[in-house]
């Protein structure tokens, strides 16, 4: 019996030791793909989608409030309290804050990994696209926060607490990145190179348009520095810019009846075609209504619905009372196909409309400003008119109405920056709200009224570093003792 047991034990031990390695080899993920599965063409669409999503929701919303377009109905005042109160600590909070920083760097990492993959797969076009989009995000982050990590960013545990670079340096580096990407795209590709096609949900593989897009971003970035004294740098860099985009850069992943355009599903209607809270809560400011109305602007009727008594009525941004005239039913909501006999309106066209990154109108107004400042060749007045026309076309205004508008004495170009920026502001309403806020910070134009509750010169100039950053990188955050969003400014905000 003893011998039997020993044999038994030996057999068991033998079985265990031979089968052990194989038995334990079960740690390959059966549920999700890993690095080795994923190709550049599977990375690019999702990365572009998230860039566009951040632009059309987070950034456009904040900019539309602080850039003078949006306020809220009484019903909605509680939902956007932190924006209306310029409540920096609430905006930076991990909880119910606005995570522009976290999302921005997460999306930057998508492009970082795309770039690495593109180098591995021999696909320089993808590298170039990744660089352009990284520049896009870095510029947005500087515009929002000021100094941010760049040189030590996106390197995982190599730099767990990346140091912050000066905002102006990040701007320069981003502009250089755009230049490198343009060079890379300008080279004639090898036949073996992988090139984007329908996975490029921005330009459908048209690399020429990517070059123009990069140029537009560069122009926008260089003009940001207009009010700080380094115009020689600006002029040198502007001189290098080739043609800019003369169409609207928009992202279309293939929105459908379930996955709607996020602007539509946030501010208009959900997939059951019911109006959303955003539609009930968001209202134009009276300032916006007046700005269009005073110029008999045909875009007004494409942007907003009239009230029952046949007038357009806006709200006061930051108003905190209970005056019933600012109730949702007494103010003008967005105007969409449901109110327009099923036809497209200015910014609400269909539930599957693409997301706009940069409109054609903005490109023209950027050129107009550069020409007006004498930084580029060309006729500022022509660029200005082209900008207005592009906006009219985008907002479904007929050629006749457009021409009448262009002839209005307060519209025709009078060679002032004020007029360029006013028209740019009127064209970017609810499309690129973040640009409106940036222009206001840069130029103080147009003269947007402040909230009733604050002293006149208290305006949001930037966001506080997010709570997540305070918690993980306090040394860098505390080097920049910034605790008030109405006083600290980003590098290009000098006024």
């Amino acid at each position, binding site marked *: 019996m003893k011998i039997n*047991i020993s044999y038994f034990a030996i057999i068991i031990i033998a079985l265990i030791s031979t089968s052990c390695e194989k038995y334990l080899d079960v740690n390959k993920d059966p549920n999700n793909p*890993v690095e080795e599965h994923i190709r550049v063409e599977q990375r690019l669409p*999702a990365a572009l989608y998230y860039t566009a999503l951040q632009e059309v929701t987070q950034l456009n919303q904040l900019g539309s409030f602080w850039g003078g377009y949006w306020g809220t109905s009484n*019903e909605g005042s509680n939902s956007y309290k932190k924006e209306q109160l310029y409540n920096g*600590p609430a905006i930076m909070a991990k909880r119910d804050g606005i995570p522009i920083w976290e999302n921005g*760097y997460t999306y930057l990492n998508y492009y970082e990994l795309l770039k690495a993959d593109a180098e591995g797969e021999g696909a320089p076009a993808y590298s170039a696209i990744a660089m352009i989009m990284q520049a896009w995000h870095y510029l947005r982050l500087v515009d929002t926060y000021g100094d941010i990590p760049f040189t030590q960013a996106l390197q*995982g545990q190599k730099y767990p607490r990346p140091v912050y670079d000066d905002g102006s340096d990040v701007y320069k580096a981003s502009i250089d990145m755009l230049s490198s990407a343009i060079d890379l795209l300008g080279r004639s590709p090898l036949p073996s190179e992988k090139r984007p096609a329908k996975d490029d949900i921005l330009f459908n593989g048209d690399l020429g348009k990517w070059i123009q897009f990069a140029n537009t971003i560069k122009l926008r970035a260089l003009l940001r520095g207009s009010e700080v004294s380094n115009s020689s740098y600006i002029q040198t860099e502007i001189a290098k810019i080739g043609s800019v985009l003369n169409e609207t850069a928009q992202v279309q992943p293939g929105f459908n*009846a379930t996955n709607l355009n996020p602007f539509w599903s946030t501010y208009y209607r959900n997939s059951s075609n019911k109006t959303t809270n955003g539609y009930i809560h968001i209202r134009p400011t009276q300032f916006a209504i007046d700005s269009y109305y005073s110029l008999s602007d045909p875009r007004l009727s494409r942007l907003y619905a009239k009230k029952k008594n046949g007038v357009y009525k806006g709200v006061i941004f930051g108003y905190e009372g209970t005056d019933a005239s600012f109730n949702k039913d007494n103010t003008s909501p967005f105007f969409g196909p449901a109110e327009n006999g099923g036809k497209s309106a200015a910014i609400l066209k269909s539930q599957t409309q693409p997301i706009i990154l940069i409109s054609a109108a903005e490109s023209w107004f950027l050129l107009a400003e550069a020409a007006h400042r004498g930084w580029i060749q060309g006729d500022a007045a022509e660029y200005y008119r082209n900008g207005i026309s592009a906006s009219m076309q985008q907002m479904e205004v007929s050629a006749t109405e457009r021409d009448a508008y262009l002839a209005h004495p307060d519209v025709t170009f009078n060679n002032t920056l004020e007029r360029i920026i006013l028209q740019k502001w009127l064209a970017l309403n609810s499309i690129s709200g973040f640009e409106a806020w940036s222009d206001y910070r840069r130029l103080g134009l147009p003269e947007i009224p402040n909230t009733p509750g604050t002293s006149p010169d208290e305006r949001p100039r930037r966001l506080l570093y997010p709570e997540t950053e305070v918690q993980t990188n306090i040394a860098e955050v505390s080097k920049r003792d910034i605790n008030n969003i109405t006083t600290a400014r980003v590098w290009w905000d000098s006024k």
Partner: protein
Amino acid sequence: MHRLFSKTIFLLVLSFAAGFQLSPAAYGQADLSLTGVVISEEDGKPVSYVTVNIKGTNRHTLTDDNGKFVIPGTIGDTIFVSSLGYSPVLIAADNHNLSVKIKPSTFVLKELKVVATALGIKRAPKELGSSTEVIRADELTQGSPLNPLTGLTGKVAGLRINMYDSKVDPNFQITMRGSRSITGNNAPLYVVDGVPVPEISRLNPGDIESITILKGANAAALYGSEGVNGALIIVTKSGEGSKGRVSFRQSTSLSDVYLLPKAQTEFGQGLDGIYSPSEYQSWGPAFDGTNGYSARKRDVRKELFTTGINIQNDLSFSKETGDDRYYLSLQNITVKGIIPKDRSSRNGARFNTLQNIGKLRVNSAISYSHVNTNTTPDGPWVSMYKMPANFPIEEMVNWRDPNSKGHPDNFFTSVVKNPYFLIDTYRNESIQQVVSGKVEAEYPVTSWLRVMYRLGLYSNSLQTRSTVERFDSERAGASQQGSVSDGTSNFRRINGDLILSAEREFGKIKINAIAGHNFRDELTKTTNIAASNLLFPDLFNQGSRSGNLTGGSAILTERQFSIYAEVTAGYSGYLFLTLTGRRDKTSLLHPDNNTYFYPGASASFIITDAFPSIRENTVTDYLKLYTSYNKTGNVNLSPYSLNLTYTQTGGFPYGDLTGFVPSSKNPNPDIRPEFVRSFEAGVQWSLLKRRLNAELAYVYSNSQGQIFAATSSAATGYTTSMVNLGELENNIIEFTIDGDIARTRDFRINTAFSYTYINNVVKDLYGSGEAEEYNIFRQSYAIKGMPYPSLKVTDYKRDNQGRIIVDAITGLPSASTEPTYKGTMVPPHQLGFQATIRYKGISLFADFESRLGAWMYSEVANAMIQTGTHPMTTQYGRKEFVIPNSVIEINNPDGSVAYQPNTSVVAKGSGNSAYWNKYVAGYSVNYAAPGDYFKMRTLSLKYTFSRAAIANMKIFKEVTIGAEATNLFIIRHKDNDFGDPEYLYNNTAGYYSWRQVPPYRTVGFTVNIVF
């Protein structure tokens, strides 16, 4: 089944009423009690304070000063006589006047099976080199808990159990001897009848014979890494000593919500002091009673909650025939929650057998439980926290009536929903089935060598369904999309142990040795299928939807192989040394570093056995010293954590366009096991004829290289990173004392007190010494040099005296860049106190607990300040005020800065909601408070009918009735009017969230009958 039970109960109650009348007169009849004397075999002298128990019952008594006892019983009963220091004796009562001889225990006290240590191998407590406590069935089931963890709360030094929710199926957090893990998994290992299982909430407390709490990490050597936090070794009833016994227990209890955060009743709905019937916020004018504008008499929030009912029925059968034993139990529980329409039911069964086939001993156990729950998510009470004090809640109940004020078309606001609408339209249902069991065969190869194989199975199958009822309305914002989500989750664990155990004596030395091999195989499969846009309000099926179907599945496999050994050497029965070792090989790590070894050693010395003169010449009966050291490895990681994974989100795939994004968690293929080193030393002392027992232990533990997903700067590209960093150190003192204040034949007062002090410190976080802190969740932090976790709150800018710096013109404060440190969120001082008073058949039990020295904060208060329902918002009568203890910054001509007390500059706008939103609600310093408390957890009164009283009803052997109450009162720190400090959220101690159902108290009745 349930109806049958109820009927039986009714009849039984009637019979008791009759039986009770007879009891006083009948009590004490000689033929219904057994009397006797216990004598020491050594010297023939009577032995006092010996426990005498009728086996298979919980009837027991103690011998008096003359060694005599009287106990209800009859001829044929088996009597179990035991006392520490003596070998216990089992005798059959063959007459009414017994004489029991007991002899002092000599070598191994294995008959004293108080301690069922690792692998079900029974050890005398004196051999153990670490602290252990035993909780027996009758202690555990005081208060009729539905879950064994409820029964353990507050009864064991060093074991902290938080029931942190009041759902029909509440959640628990269990921590043994402080935090060793930054990820918060500090729960002990559960071992049921020798098989490690992931959780025990479905175990019927009535099935439990005893729970042995092994507090040290010693258990890890034999059960694997999870034993690093100690172990609860649970032994279920076996039918031992039972001649054939049927036991029935019924308990019913009622529960009611208490400790809601305070709400103000001075101001009603509106904004800026102006009444608005469509505003849910309480920033309107003061209640003045005109047109019924006044706060309701009763707290309107309480009216949402109903009285919960728990009904518990237990039936068990047990029998011992020769060496074979059987135990069968059935359980039925029905719970009606304190939230309307929340309900749960549970049916369970267990069958344990022990059979001897020749020399082969086969032990098997199987248990099954089926749990149904049907609840609403957190919406209703989240709504109620925000409602004004004049909210006419009773008009909201029948919201389906189109004329009802509660109908979404008519509801006064579209921002916050009618709580009854949420209760009816949001439902979560689940069916959980847990099967666990084991088969164990043991064979004695020789007189000193045994071989045993044990195969254990634990399987948990969960089916869930969440539905939202579609609601269509013309009113903007009142519509609701219908949705359904069905999920299944199947988990099974197979655990196999091959164990060789040897026991040999060599002169005065006795050796016990164990060698074993273990495999563990875990498989989880989850599937989910959901539709978010259903077409018909009354049809919840994914087929009737528009838009896409969503869902997915996941399979997780985890395997482990281990070998282990334990050797105990005993010298003369008073000195013991144990060495342990275990080597694990896991599938979770990279093959290059997936094997790890961890050793342990312990020793104990029984002074009273080594020097018997102490026992004879002093009041000391028993004195033991013990110590142990263990190093334990652990892999705190889920499967497939070594690689960066990708998923399709954001609506992808759009047709044939795919789009993948990487996880925001930065993986680390080189992750290694984490190790905990622990040291323990203690003394156990019994004196005055065991009237007083005390134990003092000191514990040190140090955990290094912790595996956790650390929050990282988003600028790294990832929001979390897997790291092998961090060091936590614990210095713990545990003290327990229990004693009989009074002890006579009929009367006994026993009190027990336990105290634990935990000094927990984060020694290091990122190894290199760079980062001093990291955020765990919300305001909870790990900070170098501070306890884990610690509370840091967002705060105002203050001067060096802590005064708030305000603007000289507006009187408004501003935010401090860095949050302010408050203190630990886990109480360093934990005290438990139990008192039992027995007089004849009556016993009164009370259980108190206190935890001191920790901080908590409340998210409920945050929401209530924002909506103006918090009393804080009315302290200045909704008028502008000067912020108390505020200062104004003065710039001196020499450039220095001074702070001048502010007595006149009122904070601009401080009477209105904007101020409270921006300058109060946003600062968590305003709702943080010390979490100190003293609580009465359980009060129970029991009466066991004397044999005489029930003799008339011949069928009963034993009848006990009782009444019990839980959470009768709590004393909290004066600054804490936020809630129960025991409640926590997302495994973060000290954080009270509005998502939790507020605490309740219960009052109930129990009947226990043995046939």
